[in-house]
């Protein structure tokens, strides 16, 4: 076997060209992302500035940017949070089903089915929500209003067409479900067999094993996935635009026709016919949404990091 006996083999300069180029490229890609985000933030700030500094009566609605954005922010938060509350537990259960309950031969195919939900463009969700889901909720909403009307969420009066906040929430939940499911499923797949076996060997039932070994292990992935889903729900534009009847102030009533709009939907609805300061106001609302996303992610990181030493990532 030939080997270069020359000691010079050990005597070349430090970093190879290939390494330098590749390291440069990947660092560049990382920095590019920061630049893009800085660009987006700068764009939002610059474009929002005239609205933020304008006298309140010139802003659409005539009461300043804060009061313009507030109902939108409320609607955005209301729809996204409820969508998350529905989708996240469902996604975790579905991930559990696919990884631990479904017959093994079927599991992959079933996972694929759920992934398909992610393949449906949002405009189709909008059309589906409008033409199929909304009419279907009119009856049950009536029942809710009659029987659970004392809960503010179901106060009514019931919308005649079903294009309510409830439907928007359901559509958003369906849209973010596959995203959360996919991430959580991958996390569950990575739970070391050893830990499952440890629980089983202690005499845990299937559910106890999941609670003992699997769910805690997937905890940070569940939070992370939920944040992804929440981000998507906060920013979803077309589906909400098409589905939701937006003509109300701040209300938690989910089943009437007067609902607060969401920031993204409002931009899509108002932008085409807007000029001048109205455009700046819309972008100011986009800036608010950006800030909210920022804060939500910050909070999620804090939650994840707080127990990071128990994450099992070692």
């Amino acid at each position: 076997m030939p080997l270069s006996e020359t000691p010079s083999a050990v005597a070349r300069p430090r970093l190879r060209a290939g390494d330098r180029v590749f390291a440069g490229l990947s660092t560049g890609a990382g920095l590019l992302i920061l630049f893009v985000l800085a660009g987006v933030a700068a764009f939002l700030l610059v474009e929002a500035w005239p609205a933020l500094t304008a006298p309140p009566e010139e802003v659409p609605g005539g009461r300043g940017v804060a009061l313009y954005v507030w109902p939108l922010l409320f609607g955005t938060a209301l729809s996204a949070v409820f969508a998350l509350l529905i989708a996240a537990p469902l996604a975790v259960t579905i991930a559990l089903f696919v990884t631990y309950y479904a017959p093994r031969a079927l599991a992959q195919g079933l996972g694929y089915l759920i992934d398909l939900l992610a393949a449906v463009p949002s405009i189709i969700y909008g059309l589906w929500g409008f033409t199929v889901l909304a009419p279907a909720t009119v009856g049950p909403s009536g029942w809710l209003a009659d029987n659970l009307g004392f809960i503010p969420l179901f106060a009514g009066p019931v919308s005649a067409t079903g294009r309510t906040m409830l439907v928007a929430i359901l559509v958003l939940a369906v849209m973010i479900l596959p995203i959360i499911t996919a991430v959580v499923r991958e996390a569950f797949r990575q739970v070391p067999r050893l830990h499952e076996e440890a629980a089983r060997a202690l005499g845990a039932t299937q559910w106890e094993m999941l609670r003992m070994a699997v769910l805690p292990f997937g905890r940070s992935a569940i939070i992370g996935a939920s944040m992804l889903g929440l981000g998507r729900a906060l920013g979803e534009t077309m589906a909400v635009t098409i589905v939701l009847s937006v003509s109300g102030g701040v209300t938690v009533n989910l089943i009437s026709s007067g609902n607060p709009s969401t920031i993204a939907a409002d931009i899509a609805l108002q932008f085409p016919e807007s000029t001048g300061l109205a455009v700046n106001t819309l972008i100011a609302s986009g800036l608010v949404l950006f800030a909210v996303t920022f804060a939500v992610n910050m909070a999620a990181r804090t939650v994840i990091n707080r127990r990071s030493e128990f994450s099992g990532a070692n």
Partner: protein
Amino acid sequence: MSVPTRTERESDLTLTEAAPVRRTLPPWAPYAALAVAIAVGGTVTLAGVSAGLGAVLTVVLYVACVVTVSRLVEGPRKAKDRAVTTVVTSAFLLALAPLISVLATVISRGTARMDVEFFTFSMRGVVGEGGGVYHAITGTLMITGLATLISVPVGMLCGVYLVEYAKGRLATVITFFVDVMTGIPSIVAGLFAYALFALILGPGVRMGLMGAVALSVLMIPVVVRSTEEMLKLVPNELREAAYALAVPKWRMILKVVIPTALAGIATGVTLAIARVIGETAPLLVTVGITQSVNLNPFDGRMATLPVSAYYQYVNPGVPPDPSLDRAWSAALLLIIIVMALNLVARLISHRFAPKSGG
């Protein structure tokens, strides 16, 4: 040394002949319960209650039945386990309901125009019936293709950076901002791309590339995330093995780490494509719409499937039906394209997945 003495507990169970025997339910028991539940639910439905309520009743009845019997025969732990099994299974079935409903809706309304003309003609000169989405198919493929060309290298390189190169604060910062980036509303991404190009090329500019840039803003974080997660799964042992063979780092990443993770990355990239191929809002404000074929993504408006479906739906002609048919068929076509992409990703996964068994 002391050894724990046996503590007596309530559900203590021994396998000695003398000890009381805890029974398990026979395997057919859950099915029997299900049959009863379906029978009752079905009867109630037939008796005039809505089908949804009937289904809910069936599930509730089944759970109640199984849990009660199991609790009596097998004890509380086993009963809880059975309850969870039922809940988990029903949750899955519940999630399938919207999928089936969406697909059924799109298929039943979208097959109307699945004809040759639809795939080979544009809308140029078409009024009323006929016409096709050839121009929108080419537009969607080109714009999504361009977005993929931008996002995949950038996203993968960024993922590589985060996993293989980044240390300390900058990595944390970038990871965090990638998360923030996933939350950019699609319309804002479109407006951003528009503002960017207008800044450089003057107002009113419209081109396919703008759309691709807008879509990239949405796509990059998804690619970064999935690449990052997949690269993290590559065992360090493989990196060490390559290093020990005197392989330079970049080659190690390209030839060992990425191939090992390729299957997962491919899945992530398809998810990312699926995420953007159906986007409407950012394309409305960047590439606009045209009725004609435009194969130059660097100049002028281009049609795309979601945008043309959107306009066909929002501003149909008189009578509206031909437009609506085209809109639903375009939607169906989008789903078919994404499914085909998924299939390709699966093939790639299958081809490149690390093989362990012979």
